[in-house]
């Protein structure tokens, strides 16, 4: 069965793969680091294994972690910088950024669909990069340098960001459940590639899936949004 091709131009999070493609290294703990930390696969993560210090810099290792004050599995106090504001929440270390945004901070624009880093409905922008928030632990995002932008932060309530407006005008949405993810992926894509060609747009946003079949509208919307963003109409 053919795989969905990934566009080389696409500025998409490849979070579902290994740490090499996750783009998360600077933000926290990669999968490989995590495996090293807990001493190989198949080892249960229990209280005391993860330390707060270990969670922040990627160079942490099991030796450094040993003997330090542990965190979890109970709630941990963290501060997330979301849409320009600091938010204090107490979450278990296993909770994803998506679940914290939705269940604790009531920011439900990012949708929970596959919950496994495939569909892109949960896309938010962390420090300028589109990521699947279902594959990032909240504690990984609890880093003062991690600036989290959700769709609610794109424009004040009642106003439309240029990308959102382009999605409306080009009917790039039907049920709309994938749309916030597409809008955020589009925003990150256009920030990195402000002048896409139609050929590039045909494959851009390859990390987001739509069930209603709005891709024709999405392609038009991306081009339209690029023009609007350049025209300062956002």
């Amino acid at each position: 069965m053919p795989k969905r091709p990934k566009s080389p131009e696409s500025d998409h999070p490849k979070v579902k793969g290994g740490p090499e493609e996750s783009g998360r290294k600077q933000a926290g703990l990669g999968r490989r680091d995590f495996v090293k930390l807990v001493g190989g696969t198949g080892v249960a993560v229990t209280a005391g294994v993860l330390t707060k210090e270990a969670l922040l810099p990627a160079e942490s290792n099991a030796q450094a972690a040993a003997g330090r004050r542990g965190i979890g599995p109970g709630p941990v106090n963290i501060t997330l910088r979301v849409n320009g504001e600091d938010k204090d929440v107490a979450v278990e270390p296993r909770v994803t950024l998506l679940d914290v945004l939705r269940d604790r901070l009531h920011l439900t624009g990012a949708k929970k669909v596959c919950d496994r880093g495939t569909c892109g409905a949960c896309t938010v922008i962390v420090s300028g990069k589109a990521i699947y928030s279902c594959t990032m632990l909240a504690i990984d995002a609890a880093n003062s340098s991690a600036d989290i932008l959700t769709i609610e932060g794109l424009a004040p309530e009642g106003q439309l960001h240029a990308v959102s407006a382009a999605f409306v005008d080009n009917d790039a949405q039907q049920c709309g459940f994938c749309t916030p993810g597409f809008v955020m992926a589009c925003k990150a894509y256009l920030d990195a590639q402000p002048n896409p060609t139609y050929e590039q747009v045909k494959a851009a946003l390859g990390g987001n899936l739509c069930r209603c079949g709005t891709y024709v509208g999405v392609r038009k919307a991306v081009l339209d949004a690029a023009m609007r963003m350049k025209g300062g109409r956002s």
Partner: protein
Amino acid sequence: MADYRWPEAGKRSLIGKRISRLDGPVKSSGRVKYTYDVDRPNMLYGKMVLSPYAQATIKSIDTTAAEKMPGVKAVQVMREPGTEILWAGQEVVAVAAETEEQARDAARRVVVNYEKLPHLVRDVEPAKAGDRAKPAAEQTEGDPDKAFQEAEVTVEGQYGCSVITHCCLEAHGQATEWEGDNLTVWASTQNVSGIGGEFATGLKIPAGNVRTLTPVMGGGFGSKFGADTWGVACAQLAKKAGRPVKMMLERDHELMVAGARPSIHAKVRVGAQKDGTITAWSSESWGTGGMGTGGSPRLPYVFRIPNQRKRHTAVLTNIGPVRAWRAPNHPQLCLITMAALEDLAAKLGIDPVEMFLKNIGMTGELSKVYAAELQKAAELIEWQKKWHPRGDKAPGVIKRGLGISLHTWGGGGHPSNCACAIHPDGSVEVSLGSQDLGTGTRTVIAIIAAETLGLPLEAVKVNIGDSHYPQSGGSGGSTTVGGVSASTRRATTNALNELLAKMAPSLGVENDQLEAVGGRIQVKGNPSKGMSWKQACAKLGTTPINATGQTSITTPTGPSARDLISSGVGGVQMAEVAVDIETGVVKLEKLVAVQDCGLIIDLKTAESQVYGGCIMGVCYALYEEKIMDEQTGRCLNPDMEFYKLAGIADIGELVVHMMTGPGYDERGVIGLGEPPVISSGALTPDKVLAALEKGGAA
């Protein structure tokens, strides 16, 4: 008797134009709250314990450990010991806890003992299915034996469609909240007016005690009509805990149980004369719709071949419950028929467009529509220039082929009630217990109301998605646009007539001499004699006008809505497909969809429906399959990494052409949800074969 007919083409200010969907801004800004987003004060989260076995008897259930888990507030047994499990993923116990994580932890502590029983999860040929094969009675028309004897050419082949799922992006589920004996349900449903009754039955409370709210919903495609076991369990948890509970299906559960489309496979034989006249059809078909038998599929599709013999066998399996999937049965029957007919054309050495046109009379009353659509589609895909007999002789590993498919669907209108209020301040509300699945229902209602009342679109407030509004049908079978269009047209016409009757004396004319145009009430032919809409409404004093309109029929032949809606559309699609004969990768390069649907209310959302249908068709033709493991009886790909949907880069060029204007408009409104998804899936497999045959086997 009021005249409800649609305005003539020259007098339409909104109908048929390209209008952006009204809920677009709240969706694309992420502000609108879907069921999955509902957050009630003190709300708990529900999770379920699922059977790992495809067929089993529940021997015992122990929930004591789960009840003691942190944060757990309620536990509900959904299937008692002694009951039988019929598919892996069937729900056994539900728990509600303070957080999703706690609910999931608690669910893991429930201990269920099963007695495992033999299962079957593959749609094997009937001969291998033992007593799970349920043959239906043979059906014959004409004299198939004689026709095959006399046929100058016959062709045989086996074609089919696997089981696929709905994979709605918003999972099934609901939030429930009690106030005394009254229940509010936020449900992701296609059936706002009807689902409450199912909750009431399951909970043994009066139907009037249930209120359903669905302002928006994230896709249904036929799978979201009922309360479902998890809906009732969610309300039971909320009752036990005395707190609101939200329970949405996790993605694996969604893909395992929340909707499958039956498979159909067929061994087909077709007979014809050398000139391309099709004379005989025989098919031995089988497929699985889970544990149900269903009826005999209506093969052959669209073409009423005069001599037929058909045998169908249902194979009972433990794949999970079947649900209506956009255009139930049509995509499977379309693929089987079109593939067989194209094989026939290839054997005859005839261009399939030519062969389809030669036999177009067999399509019945839509034959003229199909002929026009075939011509248009051929022009748009450049059939004359691109078509070649099977076997692409071009050098290289990429082989191309063209495909063709015809489809049909009924439509009509479901029962629908609309209430229209004109307030003394000039504001207008139209209210229906309907729902917008993303099809544009809300927008269509607003367009019709505004058109009827001579007002701009934004002057009309559309109230849908609440069962407290007047009853309107569930959204299935492309019946919604017909149902709500007729009821809205009638309600708004009735309301306007009341207003005109009140204005007529002061303008010194009869009611029927007045019209509502451009935000004014004025005398026909004398626009200066009149007043603004606001001035007119101000004369109502303190009493608003409340009028209703009804679509009370479900068939187009009923007398009461024939002036506004009808049913029965055609549709032709053609595609160019490329196959890499070294890797086997199939690419859709271009797809042309030519579609009629009577009078189009909103051209923009109508075209989007067709684009969407085509893409969904490409998805199931090339990417989707619910893969079952015969050893464990479980679904092997209950996640979106391995249950494949097409991504944006998988879709080639799509061209949509709507048949509209004279000859189509006067048929009235006809639904468009199902038709475009039918042919798209039939456009590829035979094309692949065509490309691989002969020239392809390099």
